[in-house]
């Protein structure tokens, strides 16, 4: 079982998550070009990590659970990398004469 997390930790995580929500909301209104996507998804990924690590107690879970949590996101990364690798590279080669 998990050790009891102090209320202070939960409140601090909640405060960070709320501040980051406002940050991502206002940064999105500044035109950073391609960086907008990177910043928005970076903040979202960081928020997700906080929720998983503290609210979902993976911090104090056993190594097997930690491995499976990692594996889940690793598998999703494979799903996205292979799908997008296909779609994004379709125009990279010139079409053969039989096309």
């Amino acid at each position, binding site marked *: 079982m998990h050790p009891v997390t102090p209320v202070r930790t939960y409140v601090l995580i909640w405060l960070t998550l709320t501040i980051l929500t406002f940050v991502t909301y206002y940064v999105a209104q500044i035109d950073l070009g391609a960086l907008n996507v990177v910043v928005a998804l970076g903040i979202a990924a960081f928020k997700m990590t906080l929720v998983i690590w503290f609210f979902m107690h993976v911090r104090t879970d056993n190594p097997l659970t930690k491995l499976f949590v990692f*594996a889940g996101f690793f598998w999703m990364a494979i799903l996205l990398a292979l799908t997008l690798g296909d779609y994004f590279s379709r125009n990279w080669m010139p079409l053969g004469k039989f096309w």
Partner: protein
Amino acid sequence: MADTHAVATEHPPQLRHHFDDMGQQFDSATFGMWVFLLTEIMFFGGMFGAYTVYRSMYPDAFAATSNFMNPAFGAANTAVLIVSSLTMALAVRAAHLGQQKLLQIMLVLTMIFGTAFLVIKGFEYHEHWVDGKVPLFPGHWVWEGANAPPQFAHQAQILFCFYFFMTGFHAIHMLVGLGIMTTILMMARKGAFGPSYYTPVEVSGLYWHFVDIVWIFLFPLLYLIGHTKKLI
């Protein structure tokens, strides 16, 4: 014979016989829940992947549709869900410490914030319905005006389909979460949880936080990215 009988009555009533102790039972339950959540990650991951493909195929159409989203609704809903995650985490903590009254209060607060999310979402859907931004429903899809370039008439419908499917599946998960919380609250009222056994609260919390995480990604993807790009 008398000895085995004594041992059998000694262990906590919630301990299933195929587990060594409560700790092992708890670890197995959270592990099992995480395995379920991995299937959920793949379920939403497929939608996120398809969304990314279409967004990269029609970036300008996407920028045009994002002008019909209201980021204020999205941000408010994100804040509401994050508060509900805090109250959920505090509910698990209260269950762990055996604070029965606080556990029930936190569960009720979690359900209130979860319901508030769905109410805000409902107002938003209603706005789309009135504005004619619901594809496939005759009379509720209108694509005209300065923000709606005619060349994107078809592509915009695809992107709104993504919006409704992704937020819709998320909303269904919220409804399921509210059902789970109702069950947990009824169990908590009977005093089912305490320091030696709070597994159902912990495992339901994992589900609730997962649904929160899905929204943490839906918010920037559907409401924020591309919103600065005003067309024409």
